[in-house]
């Protein structure tokens, strides 16, 4: 390395160097999350250990604990990320559509995502039923943003205030019916088309009632 290049290097502002560290930390986090996703999907929350996750990520358990407080922290982070990504695909699916068409499009987008990563979805669902873990996960993972998107679409078709209709309950029920359908997907080995069809039919039933109610 000649003198000029060396001199130029030392002239780099110190602010640039912490970015390298932050980048390395981010990469480590991503490696851990990727390994954890696979293991949680394979073995569920209880079955996956930090030791196995660390091994799969090619690092020590200490390194994992440097990035995450504990297993529930790691798990919740994964669930949160999934939720964020779900929300953006729902918004994308509903673009240009309104009312029930937006709702059906969102159900289809959700089903496509969830069926592609069904095992992980199941691990998250199972956690939600485990007292103790459920509180921790729920505190950081609210389905309110998802319900809000559906509710906005419902409001486009119905004047909720005028007809004394509970748009929140309707939106929640539509999403709950979808989740219930998805729960059967693994057990009954449903295809994407079948999940879609059933969840949309459930949504149609709920909306049909609203029209009349």
């Amino acid at each position: 390395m000649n003198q000029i290049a060396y001199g130029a290097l030392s002239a780099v502002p110190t602010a640039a160097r912490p970015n390298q560290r932050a980048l390395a930390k981010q990469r480590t986090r991503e490696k851990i999350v990727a390994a954890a996703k696979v293991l949680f999907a394979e073995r569920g929350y209880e079955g996956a250990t930090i030791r196995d996750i660390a091994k799969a990520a090619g690092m020590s358990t200490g390194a994992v604990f440097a990035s995450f407080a504990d297993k529930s922290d790691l798990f919740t982070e994964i669930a949160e990320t999934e939720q964020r990504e779900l929300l953006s695909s729902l918004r994308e699916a509903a673009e240009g559509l309104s009312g029930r068409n937006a709702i059906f499009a969102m159900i289809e987008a959700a089903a496509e995502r969830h069926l592609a990563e069904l095992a992980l979805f199941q691990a998250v669902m199972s956690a939600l039923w485990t007292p103790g873990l459920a509180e921790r996960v729920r505190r950081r993972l609210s389905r309110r943003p998802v319900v809000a998107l559906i509710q906005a679409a419902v409001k486009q078709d119905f004047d909720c205030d005028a007809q004394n209709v509970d748009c929140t309950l309707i939106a929640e029920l539509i999403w709950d019916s979808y989740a219930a359908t998805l729960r059967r997907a693994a057990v009954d080995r449903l295809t994407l088309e079948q999940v879609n069809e059933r969840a949309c039919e459930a949504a149609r039933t709920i909306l049909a009632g609203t029209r009349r109610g």
Partner: protein
Amino acid sequence: MLDAARELFDEVGYEAATVRAIAKRAGVSVGSVFTSFRSKADVLGEVARERLSDLYADLERVAPHLRGSTADRCRSMFAVHYAFEFRRLRLFLAYIAVSFDWQEARHLPVMGSNARLRGMIRDCLAEGVVRGDVRSDVDLELAIDMLVGCYAWNYRLAAAGGADSVALTGLFDRQIGLIFDGLAPQPG
């Protein structure tokens, strides 16, 4: 053995209830447990199956007294379900939680698939068609799936938020209202 398992699942949940603890509570060896059961999930499945006779008894007691619209009759039936499961809530939550893990759950009776319970709901809906408050072209299996699915899904509020059977019954009453509005015959 099943009594011990039932108590432990209800006391500490599925994960925390080890086969060793179940064996100890029952006063048998771990080996004995595995002679009768393939796995812990298998034990849970048996406990779940065993509770059904009590549940059927509760439902049968209520059946002759069901009144009102189909929606109301459904409400009464599911109110019995909620009251029943809340007597051993942790056990039921354990059952739901494990049912998501389809490797563990392979030997469990599939939640929501109990033929007799589905049959009771189906009969109620079929009577509704005759009575005229359920439309004749209703997809019965889908309607049952919706009702059973939402009934079970509501339990997450008990798992995470500590909601009691009154709260869940109240919520489900409103959800049933929405569902049955949608199942009603089309006007004209």
